[in-house]
């Protein structure tokens, strides 16, 4: 097991990574899950994450970046504490997903991929998040909110601001 001498990850995550690389016939198969877990812990994929993941998987940093830059859900820049992902795909669009997005923009004072100055919220327009039955829907970090209206949206944002939101991160 090629556990690095010093790791930037928590002991639990480091242990999880050690297990991950042993799980697949080829080490590099563990790359995407590793990046996702690393992102959850660090908040984004920093250069330090790239370096350590490359070392753990036994590939070059370039190889890690090749994969990393391919997936839009992997981020290389820090974002706010709560990442508000607004779906504007067909079902949501038909039920005014764009309205929700515009509302969020106005309310938070940021654009797509922007982060509020207090570092609390980031906003992102995303493809289908799989909540078509209850469109329009958003996802904040790993939590879903559906059948939204602008009022409901305001309430959710207020809750998060006041620390009452569901928190998984």
């Amino acid at each position, binding site marked *: 097991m090629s556990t690095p001498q010093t790791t930037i990850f928590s002991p639990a995550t480091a242990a999880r990574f050690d297990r991950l690389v042993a799980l697949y016939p080829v080490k590099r198969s563990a790359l995407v899950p590793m990046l996702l877990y690393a992102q959850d812990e660090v908040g984004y994929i920093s250069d330090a994450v790239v370096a350590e993941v490359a070392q753990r998987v036994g590939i*070059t*940093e*370039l*190889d890690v*970046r*090749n994969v990393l*830059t*391919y*997936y*839009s859900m992997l981020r290389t820049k820090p974002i706010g504490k709560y990442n508000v992902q607004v779906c504007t795909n067909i079902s949501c669009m038909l039920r005014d997903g764009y309205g929700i997005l515009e509302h969020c923009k106005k309310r938070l004072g940021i654009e797509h991929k922007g982060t509020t100055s207090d570092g609390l919220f980031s906003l992102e327009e995303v493809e289908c998040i799989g909540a078509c039955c209850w469109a329009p829907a958003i996802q904040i970090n790993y939590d879903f909110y559906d059948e939204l209206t602008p009022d409901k949206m305001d309430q959710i944002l207020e809750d998060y601001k006041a620390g009452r939101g569901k928190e998984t991160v």
Partner: protein
Amino acid sequence: MADVTFTVDGKKLTAPAGTLLIDACRTSGIEIPAFCYYPKLSMQAACRMCVVRIEKMPKLQTACTTPVTEGMVVATETDEIKQARKATIELLLGNHPLDCPVCDAGGECELQDMTFKYGAAESKYVEIKQHREEQQWSPVVYFDRPRCILCYRCVTVCGPGMDVWALGIQNRGVGAVIAPNGQDHLNCEECGMCIDLCPVGALTSGTYRYKTRPWEMNHIATICTHCGDGCKTTLGVRRVNDGMEIVRGDNRDKSGINGDFLCNKGRYAFDFANRTDRLTKPLVRQPDGNFAEVSWDHALDFAAKKLREIREAKGGQAIGVIGSNRTTNEESYLLQKFARTIVGTNNIDHHRTADYVSFAAALAGKAGRTASLRDTLTAPAILLLGNDPTNQHPALAWNLRSNVRLHRARVYVANHVEIKLRRQAKAFLQIPQDGYASLVQYLAGNDSAIAANDTTAAFRDALRKEESLLIVFGSEFRGRDIQALVDFGLSLPNTKFAALGDYANSRGAADMGVLPDMLPGYVPVSDAAHFTDEYGAPLPKTPGMDLLQMFDAAQRGDLAAMYIVGSNPVSRFGVDPAVLKNTFLIVQDMFLTETAQLADVIFPAANLYEKAGTVTNTYGDIQLVKKAADKAGVRTDFELIVRLADRMGADPKKLVPFGRGVTADMGQSRGPESGEADRHAVWLAANRLELKLSPFDPFATLDEIQRLVPSYHVSRLELLTGTEQPEKFDLVQIQPAGSRRDLVLPAEDTLFTSGTLGRFSDMMKAVVESHTTPNPAQTAAD
């Protein structure tokens, strides 16, 4: 595999099952355009240029990923296909700048050609082009991102091809870019294969960019002057004030034993030839101790007179001759003939980099046991002992990697360091630096020779199961060790051998008898009968002094003169300059080397790119060297030896058997660039004729070599067509070697110091510097 028959454009074709349609068509002369496809690299199917219509298939198919099948009916040029290709081109040109007038690839750009053939006259795209500034990834690799059409050829050749993985693809969709591994610089072997394979001008070469156009150059395929692999390199040359200048080295025409492969040395390290500090005038040391530029007449007369006086006063034993690892076979041969017949001494040697004498002795009389460089690409099993081909024999390393990748060859590596090729090896054995001989004993069955364990046992068992084996060994093996290794190899059913030495023509120098105890073809000096007949003069029969003995003799005051050709023993062997203070020293070289600085007379010599003849690579492949470049003021070593002999009172006709009855000037004297001479050469070759009218014609000497050295009795016509000819090593009539010193001093070249001339290549120096002082990392993507 079994053959299948299929129809393409109404023609019935046959190809082995599994062949890709694009390959099968190209073999039959049906050209299918493609950008991303490159033979022998992994499939991409990225560019969609190679689409064809296959009957019973609903959509157009990519020929680069479709294997041929029985009864397949294919159309490759219909209106539908033209329309598809036109659309593809339009997409590719979406962001491609129209900078063909300044682009290096202009005139040899695949995208340009395809646009002429299929392109649309107008583009539907009106968006502003995504412009990015050009990036310099290394001293030799520049990347112009907008020109890139994302065909991935560079990525695949660098990864699976070179096993370097210096290039990758970043971002997705329209944002995708090719990115280097060092974020904004390449950390790689700088082979330049990516530049060569790039179908457009996205990757350009630091040595060539913005210098000239393909149609302004002459292209001459000759042999690289650096390592012992003897790759063909196609030099682009153009006329300059003082001769012909080399502007580019590549091998896109896939000529020769290396196919299209070339390492950094062949591609960039020709710039020593263009250096301004090259010697171009003869120099003679004046009484005040300084050099003065003198006329050729004066320098030659002075040197010849001195040599003659010493020969007459003290005999030939008082004169030593040192040959070169980078002169042609004819020059090496001529030099030993000069030493033995005109000086009258066997004091002749060169810097040896492998023990070819023991190798010849071990294989005496065994036919078909030496491997060509080509064999390393096809052999099913290879045992590599010692050496680090990635650094010292890049073409061999490329062949081994390709062999593993394309033919699943089994490579067994034993080395004292973890060389890079272990990554391709089926088994890798790390042994002590002095453990090579014991390893061979162990492999031959002596269990107690090394501390054996399961790994070594498995290594030996796997080797013994091989039905045919190619043993490649480095200069770690000498003398009796080579004998033992060959004995072990011959005990296996079907074994071939390759001995690795450094420098362009070390093998040739040894073959041509630039040795104190061996005549050409490894004939002992005591047994010179047929040489005496041919030369018409008796030869000295006792072995002369070797290189080290010569310097010892000089120190004792027993060596009155030394003639050093294309070699720098003072630096290589750490000779104290004081040793030579009483020795008259004649040096012919390109530069004022440490040895030349001590000389009394210096003749400016031409390099291997500026002369004609043959060279023999370390595997024994004899190849033709063609004159590509030219420099005013320098002369070939061949001419210099003949002129010196002439002025010492020798008959040039005896030294070079030229001009048998024909006296017309057929154009040769005007040089190969004059056009007329070229046409004559073509006509002569086509009619199996060669006219040797000049004492400076190396082919007259090649005739003599072929008469005297049976192993060089190869097809002249094949040589002239540019095909390498394996030396017939079984015809070497060598007697078992007694106790002789091998005196092998391997060059231990790294990848970027190459041969004896690498230190004079500014481009190689820049590459080394860029690797030792990395740039602060920035993000390449934007």
